């Protein structure tokens, strides 16, 4: 492990940074001979740029970021890979109390939104404003998918803006936002402060859908294969530890510290179970899931329609590197899947028909043009 024994990894203050925090605090990095410095970052653009330029060796990243970087969406193209997933699920959509007070307790939230959007339009009032954490995020695609499924056009019927997760609660309180889709603990924090109510969880749209990955540049992975494998083993073991409910009290205390998430322990503690850090092969980076993310980028006009979805998905999401690490641990290899299911609406996504799938939605940029 030539000069790479000392690594700097970035994370954004969220519950799902847990594998990095646990690997550091519980000695999983040290056990692999790695000296790791964790760098707390406050924006995804900074995480991306720092990894791209080598200021960070790797980072906790939104699952679509390595894909967006590789195809040059939102910036210069920089080949990145995702050799493991850090978690599945955990994101949620919180609606402001200012809205939910006009909804009957048993009224399905999306139907209530459809009703209130129509009322607003009839009265000539401004559109609802919902925030996501980054343009290239599961949060953006989840919220859009969920709204569109209910007949709400995310580009025309509401406004979707970008805001930092840690500021969602205060902007909800100030009335600048009517809702937001972000990772935990920020939904739990808003609920616990009486500002909003969770209207949808990631698992309501897609059971065990992707959320965060470990992102490194393709060049770094080629240059430091031994360090990468050591890093994967440490993070996989840390993920297994973080996933065990018996460790959640200790994990919540750890995450709540000012150098990590810096939020109320109780909010972190109660929102931990919505995230899967390990079970059912949660850490396998699956190209078929990556292709679904690319299909949504294409659907909403973020990626060119002639993009080779399978090619990009297989270049970025690397089960081969993951399999090498789990083989050392005696864990099961990643399944080879050409389809993805688990969607609440019963659809099955096929890797070979990804482009047709992207164009198949009634609402989306491809359908309109």
């Amino acid at each position: 492990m030539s000069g790479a024994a000392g690594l700097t990894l970035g994370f954004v203050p969220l519950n799902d940074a847990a594998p990095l925090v646990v690997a550091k605090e519980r000695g999983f990095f040290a056990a692999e001979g790695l000296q790791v410095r964790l760098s707390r970052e406050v924006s995804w653009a900074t995480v991306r740029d720092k990894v791209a330029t080598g200021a960070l060796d790797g980072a906790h990243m939104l699952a679509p970021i390595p894909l967006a970087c590789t195809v040059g969406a939102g910036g210069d193209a920089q080949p990145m890979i995702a050799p493991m997933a850090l978690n599945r699920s955990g994101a949620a959509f919180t609606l402001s109390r200012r809205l939910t007070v006009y909804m009957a307790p048993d009224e399905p939230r999306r139907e209530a939104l459809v009703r209130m959007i129509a009322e607003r339009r009839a009265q000539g009032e401004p559109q609802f404003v919902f925030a996501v954490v980054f343009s290239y995020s599961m949060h953006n695609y989840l919220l859009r998918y969920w709204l569109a499924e209910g007949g709400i056009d995310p580009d025309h019927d509401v406004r979707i803006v970008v805001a930092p997760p840690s500021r969602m609660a205060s902007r909800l309180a100030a009335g600048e936002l009517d809702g937001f889709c972000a990772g935990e603990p920020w939904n739990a924090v808003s609920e616990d402060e009486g500002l909003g109510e969770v209207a949808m969880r990631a698992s309501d749209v897609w059971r065990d859908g992707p959320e965060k990955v470990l992102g490194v540049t393709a060049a770094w992975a080629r240059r430091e294969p031994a360090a990468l494998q050591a890093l994967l083993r440490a993070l996989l073991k840390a993920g297994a530890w973080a996933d065990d409910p018996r460790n959640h009290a200790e994990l919540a205390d750890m995450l709540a510290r000012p150098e990590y998430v810096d939020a109320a322990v109780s909010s972190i503690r109660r929102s931990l179970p919505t995230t899967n850090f390990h079970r059912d092969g949660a850490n396998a980076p699956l190209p078929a899931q990556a292709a679904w993310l690319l299909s949504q980028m294409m659907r909403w006009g973020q990626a060119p329609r002639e993009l080779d979805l399978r090619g990009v998905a297989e270049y970025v999401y690397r089960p081969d590197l993951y399999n090498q690490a789990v083989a050392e641990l005696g864990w099961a290899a990643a399944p080879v899947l050409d389809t993805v299911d688990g969607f609440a609406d019963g659809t099955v996504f096929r890797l070979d028909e990804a482009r047709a799938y992207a164009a198949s939605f009634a609402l989306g940029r491809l359908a309109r043009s």
Partner: protein
Amino acid sequence: MRVLVVDPDPARAALVVEGLAGVQPLEVRQAPVFDEHEAASFGPDVVVVAADSPDRDTLESLQDASVVNPRPVVMFVDRSEPGLAEAAVRAGVAAYIVDGLAPARVRDILEVAMSRFHLMHQLRQDLEKAKADLASRKTVERAKALLMKERGLEEEQAYKLLRKLSMDTGRPLGAVAADLLAFAGVLKGDAG
């Protein structure tokens, strides 16, 4: 020049004002956090923000080609962030300034960022227009082929007919061709 400095520390805005001394007219506004409505009403020519600001993701989302009024964004990085400065310039929508903000360099940096931004914006618009032109040319080709097949015309005659339709109706050639194809589709649908 209108400059919006997004920084909780007013010292940064003071540096910008100092560096832009002599620029007329000049309005520098400082905001602790980025607020879209405030920014829209102010209408800055350029936005200055620290690279480690939580507002970066919001600002970046406003750089999308789909946004009506994108603004150039200048980011500064302190020496304590080695490597990041190596990025120097990203995608032409933002310039990284190395070594924090030094008043002596502010004016040059802001001007370079703005001209680069407008150049990139122009290139992007040109690209969109080129794509649209290409699509329109393809439409004209297909309309020509349709006329040749249905009316037994030579290529030259088909093109002249399209051009005449365009001049008679005062509409672009591509639009006339698109109408023709659409009507042909409807007629075929009726017949079938």
